[in-house]
């Protein structure tokens, strides 16, 4: 089968690519489009490091086919800052030392942003359950939860 042509929007920019039908969106992002900010930790949807949003819906890009991006809008970590102006979540993760090795951080930031879009005033437990799909082995989660709650406060202007 010839590769399939896909036209999509990634971080607000229209992008076209060719890809085999059985290639995952994660593979396309990292290996065809050179966007290596989205990370692979397991390839089976069990660690959340490859989180992106697809038409606003938080998903694991390792469990989405590249061809499914046709006509949709993809948001990745590379699109979270506004040029050199960090998103408030990115800033809070740095201030709270909410990352150590940083491999899971892109996934956590994309997931946390998707949470705060739906629930601007989450409780600690709501943050913990929403982020349960993102594994971290270095931090023990404390500072990640604190950073998300702090960012939520600032975004609410509370």
């Amino acid at each position, binding site marked *: 089968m010839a590769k399939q042509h896909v036209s999509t929007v990634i971080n607000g920019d229209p992008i076209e690519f060719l890809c085999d039908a059985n290639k995952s969106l994660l593979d396309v992002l990292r290996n065809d489009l050179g*966007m290596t900010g989205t990370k*692979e*930790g397991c390839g089976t949807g069990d*660690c959340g490091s490859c989180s992106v949003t697809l038409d606003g819906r938080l998903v694991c890009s390792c469990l989405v086919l590249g061809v499914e991006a046709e006509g949709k809008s993809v948001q990745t970590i590379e699109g979270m800052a506004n040029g050199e102006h960090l998103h408030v979540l990115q800033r809070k993760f740095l201030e709270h030392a909410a990352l150590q090795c940083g491999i899971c951080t892109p996934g956590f930031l994309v997931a946390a942003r998707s949470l705060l879009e739906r629930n601007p005033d989450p409780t600690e437990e709501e943050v913990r359950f929403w982020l349960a799909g993102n594994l971290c*082995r270095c931090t023990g989660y404390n500072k990640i939860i604190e950073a998300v709650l702090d960012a939520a406060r600032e975004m609410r202007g509370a």
Partner: protein
Amino acid sequence: MLTNTKNTHQTMKSVGTSPVRPDGVPKVTGLAQYGADYSLPGMLWAKVLRSPHAHARIRSINTAKALALPGVKAIITAADLPNQSFDYVGPERVALNYWHMTRNILAREKALYEGHAIAAVAATTAAIADQAVRLIEIDFEVLPHVIDVDDAMKPDAPLLFEDMISRGFDPAPTKPSNISKRLEFKIGDLEAGFASADEVVEMSFKTAAVHQGYIEPHSCLARYGADGQCELWSSSQGHFVVRAYTAKLLGIEIGNLLVHPAEIGGGFGGKTVVYVEPLALALARKSGHPVKLMMSREDTFKATGPTSGASMTVKIGVKKDGTIVAADGLFKFQAGAFPGSPVMNATMCAFAPYIIPNARAIGFDVVSNRPKSAAYRAPGSPISAFAVESVLDILAKKIGMDPLKFRLKNAVKAGSPTVWGPKHSHDGYAETIQALLDHPEYNKPLGKNQGRGVASGFWFNGGGESTASVHINEDGTVVIATGSMDVGGSRASMALMAAETLGVPYESVRSTVADTASIGYNHVTGGSRVTYATGMVVVEACNKIIEELRLRASLMWDVDVKGVIWEDGYAKPADKSVGTFEPLSLKAIAAKRAVTGGPIGVESSINAGGQAPGFSTQFCDVEVDPETGAVKILRFVAAQDVGRAIHPKYCEGQIQGGVVQGIGWALNEEYIYDKQGRLSNAGFLDYRIPVASDLPMIEAIMVEVPNPNHPFGVKGVGEANIVPPMAAVANAIERATGTRMRELPMSPPRVLAAIDAGRG
């Protein structure tokens, strides 16, 4: 008392603050490059063929069909790597045996565990490489296998090495076995000690192998130049060690291999060894193309070193007043397919926190058909501590003494004896116990099915070889470079110590990790050594450059250098007699660098010693569901002696991270093997590391008992925190249910079975 007396706690501007780390922005924007994020033009993709059998002789490998597949450029097997001589090189505890190492990264005579690498293919696309791997035909002679450590020690157990004669026996045994080594440490008179005890408890424990669980699988990119100059981009805990091992395994000069330090996605000890780098470089050599080799999560579980599972028996005797009089420990550790478990650490750490005049610790290093074990955060210490701290809890209850007060009564101080010989030379343990005794929640009453457990832990912490350079830029800003990989924020702590020493703002110091051609040798980032040893050499380099800056100022003022002092980031005249000169900033001195002699830069190196051990004492409250055996962590409080916290938030993060790894180890994590010796939970779904919703906030208490041997009083922080959690959770479960768990993990089926058995 700090050797650097001027840096008393109050006067410090940088050390003790928690600024944003210099490598933070790339990591929160996705720009940071990890092992799998590099690529080069003409790059090939590699895949490894791994053994489906737990134990099999490799009679022949036929790669003809695979090589014929269009797009395949090279295939390697063990024949492509030089064989290595059989001898143990370097320190006994971590003796390297390249004969073993080369066989672990590519099987030669035998496949010794399921997942053992046998061949590797490089092709123009990953899909072709995947396909090619399935076309390689191997003629296996499947052999009986053995997984469990006790089974592997039986006389009739299948032998991994038909010629392995155990070391450490006197006289040496005549028959080969799976026991690679026996070791023993002993002080005092055991019989007399136990005879004088009022209460003696002896109990056996078993733990399962667990993996470090770093979220980033191993991956690298390799290039082999036509002129023999090679390059590697790999995520590791020490690119100098990767260079040394890879050069040796490929039979090339160390000088011909340049290793770039990719960012590392977690290691915890598991990335102080090599798996993918030698294969990728050998494929690059054979194909003439750059080669990218990445492990899958399944490969990482099956073929990279977990820490040992163990079978242990501990016997401790105490007097009614709580004095420990004798202790005896037997620790049998799984080394995996090749010798080298952390059993020596385990025997040395087991009783280390306690003054015990009569003690013995015996260790066995035993091979079995599982992946070769690798270091995992205070390697060996958490395993022996699970047994020792459980028995101590039983004894405390028997003599009716509060478990913290019982530990305080026997806590080691400077001058206390150790089972391995030299006396302790640092305090810090009793202070961690006191921190919990003073904690408002320690005496808070608990509800039904709830219980509170206590445990302590010890780790040596490390010193060793480090190199650092400091350069003053033309505008007076500073660049420091070291060869220590930054896993948990060490760039920030290096910059803080440099800024403090130079008396300049943290923001004016750029802190970098240099590749193997740009800085002198650095040992691995591990053993909780970097903030201590690399920090020490950064401070030394800064002090050296201060001397140079004073010289340059003296030339600018045309005065004797003795007349110039350095204070708060400025060169100043020592006193009026030298002259009324305006203080010279770094910027001012740098501007005159040409006429005073040229660029201003130094490099320092050190083989650091004088490190102080890390002690941690912790308590946790749990609730056990009596109908399902599920254990819920209600509260977790961990105190640890950190000497001096350089970057408090990252220091705290080490404690929180280590505790949560300990909780996973206690409750759910284990390697589960099926009857054919194959790993049945090689993924993050069924190898359950804790998720955010499983946990409360972990409260970290940083106790500061400064180490006088370090300019800022630093003690290593990274590892002692993972030692106590398993026993703390087990002791809490015992208080909640009355049942003593003796096997890890304490999963719901096991806890429920133990409760039901208890109810009889």
